[in-house]
């Protein structure tokens, strides 16, 4: 089997690589970063469909209104999670997304109502987002402090910045031009536009992470910053890009929300940042960086929303929604671990 010249480890125990070669297609699915969450999602979906067919009047899962609703809702946290996910892969946290999600669209709406042209107002939102991301990155990397702390501080600073600048907590009517509202929140055939955009953004994130040079660098700096530096990768710049992308994705999500509701408010939208991280972890991303897939994030967002939908549709007391969400988060991560470990 092995010649003298060959570097095979003939008599050693089979390495994981050997096992991979022999592994079945099924095992390869489980090994994929999005494998466990994919299995979870499929199981959940299958269960929902079966239940809906068995109890069509009590469990209206398959009603087109419900399906559309799910597709409309998944992007809320999903879009934020895409950015948070990219940053997690780079090995850093961003807790400030919850504030960015509120403040940048608020700035956009304020500028727009003050007569700025819409493209300029949108550009303003993205500029502020990029600025916040840049600041997060510069403080974290420049001083070498944990991003958890930088962005925790930034969460509070950004959250209070809008009310501080305009003097009061405010809400601004944002009546966007019909074409914008239709493109962002209308529907494409039976599929709501937010979901279409979510998939488009997911594709962009995928192209960036898996097909682009900088994405490759993001994986490297998150997986092993020392090895990345050794390979000549500019760790500082790569992480900075990831920080900025994270804020930008939060802003996109915020703009969708504002267009959908026709209003921008300074109300703190509590716990968004934690949900975004939960989605990523359910989707198979590692909190210590370097691992994960965009498919995992998309499926993670779907799973979280599906579970919430199931809880409400099955008429469990909505009063205790939080409780089920909590169980779900832990369970999701546990399933992730178990499925992977079985390999």
């Amino acid at each position, binding site marked *: 089997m092995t010649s003298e010249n060959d570097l095979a480890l003939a008599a050693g125990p089979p390495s994981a690589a050997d096992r991979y070669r022999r592994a079945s297609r099924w095992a390869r699915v489980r090994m994929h970063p999005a494998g466990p969450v994919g299995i979870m999602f499929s199981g959940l979906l299958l269960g929902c469909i079966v239940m809906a067919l068995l109890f069509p009047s009590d469990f209206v899962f398959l009603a087109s209104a419900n399906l559309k609703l799910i597709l409309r809702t998944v992007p809320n946290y999903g879009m934020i999670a895409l950015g948070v996910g990219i940053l997690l892969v780079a090995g850093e946290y961003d807790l400030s997304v919850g504030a960015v999600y509120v403040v940048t669209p608020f700035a956009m709406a304020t500028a727009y109502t003050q007569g700025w042209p819409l493209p300029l107002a949108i550009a303003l939102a993205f500029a502020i987002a990029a600025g916040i991301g840049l600041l997060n990155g510069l403080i974290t990397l420049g001083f070498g402090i944990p991003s958890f702390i930088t962005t925790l501080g*930034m969460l509070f*600073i950004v959250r209070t*910045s809008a009310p501080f600048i305009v003097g009061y907590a405010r809400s601004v009517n944002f009546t966007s031009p019909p074409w914008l509202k239709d493109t962002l929140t209308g529907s494409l055939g039976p599929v709501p536009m937010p979901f279409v955009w979510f998939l488009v953004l997911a594709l962009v994130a995928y192209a960036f992470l898996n097909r682009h040079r900088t994405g490759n660098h993001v994986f490297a700096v998150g997986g092993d910053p020392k090895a990345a530096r050794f390979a000549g990768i500019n760790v500082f710049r790569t992480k900075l890009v990831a920080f900025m992308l994270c804020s930008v994705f939060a802003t996109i999500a915020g703009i969708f929300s504002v267009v959908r509701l026709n209003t921008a408010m300074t109300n703190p939208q509590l716990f968004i940042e*934690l949900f975004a991280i939960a989605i990523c972890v359910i989707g198979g991303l590692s909190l210590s960086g370097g691992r994960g897939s965009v498919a995992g994030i998309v499926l993670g967002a779907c799973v979280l929303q599906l579970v919430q939908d199931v809880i409400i549709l099955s008429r469990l007391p909505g009063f*205790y*929604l*939080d409780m089920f969400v909590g169980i779900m988060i*832990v369970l999701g*991560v546990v399933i992730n*671990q178990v499925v992977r470990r079985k390999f």
Partner: protein
Amino acid sequence: MSTPAGPTNAELAALRRPAAGNPTWRAVRNYQAINIVVLVTLFLGFCTGYSLLYPDQLRFASLGNLSVLSQQVPVTAIVAIGVGLLMIGGEFDIAVAGTFTLVPFVVAITSAGSWGWPIGVSLLAGLAVALLIGLMNGMITTRLGIPSFIATLGTMFFMRGVIRFVSLNPTTKQPDNIAFFPGDALKALLGGQIIGPIYAQMLWLIGVALIGYALLNRHRFGNHLLLTGGNRDAAVAVGVPVRNVKVTAFMLCAVTAGFAGILQGVRINQVEPSFATISGLELKAIAAVVVGGTSLFGGRGAILGIILGAVLIETVDNILVLISAPETIFKGFLGATTILAVILNTVIGRRARR
């Protein structure tokens, strides 16, 4: 452990070259929490000095204000000590606000009305619940092998539901605040005025701090904890029961949070279910702990630093009230204080070690 990619012996020798000054000064400089000690001393000194010079402009050092601080700071600091010990062990607890709320609920419910347990038994029951919560957090984290950040995020949401359930008012079927009047003796014990602006909470803080210090610096457990948080593999290699150490730390964290919750409940005679949801105690505690020089990644931290971190955060807040700062700026200041203090800790720390 040899790490060939690390510094060479020559470099290490260079690092070990004697620092200037006498040994006492060196010991002070090498103390882990020295930055925060200096920072808090300067800040408090400035505030006290200013308020003594111009008592009409800044009433920081007035009896009334110090009384408020001496009742509030210990509560935050006690929570922070638990969170800090856990963080030294390399883990987070996002669910402390839930524990902080649920435990006094248990005490208040079991000690009154149809339950009517003696207060001592109720207190023990409350602390037992805290231990259970800590055990749950610890088991989920260590046995199921999921990050504590996520595990306790889950239990945070879970406990909100539990709190809503236990706080249901039997007549209105709605969650409700519960009055908590545990009797004068306990009130004096847990929240009485000792002398001047010194309240019983201060003594309890000192007690908890001493226990925390003894555990962390004078007990085998502390050594295990530092090792577990600092270098898990090394800890396993030398036979430290890493999982048990972490579970114990989770339980300590929950017990301190629950105890602080009881202190709070005794002081304000009431327990509110909403506290678990909107207080943001978990982030405030983490902020206090890292401001106090504790490493977010575990393995490094000092009890005094953690307490001073809580002192700094609460005092900054207090000063902002006293100078009539705009309401919108408060949380922003908490954020800025956190970032700046941690920058100060790391940068000065790095320079001192250089």
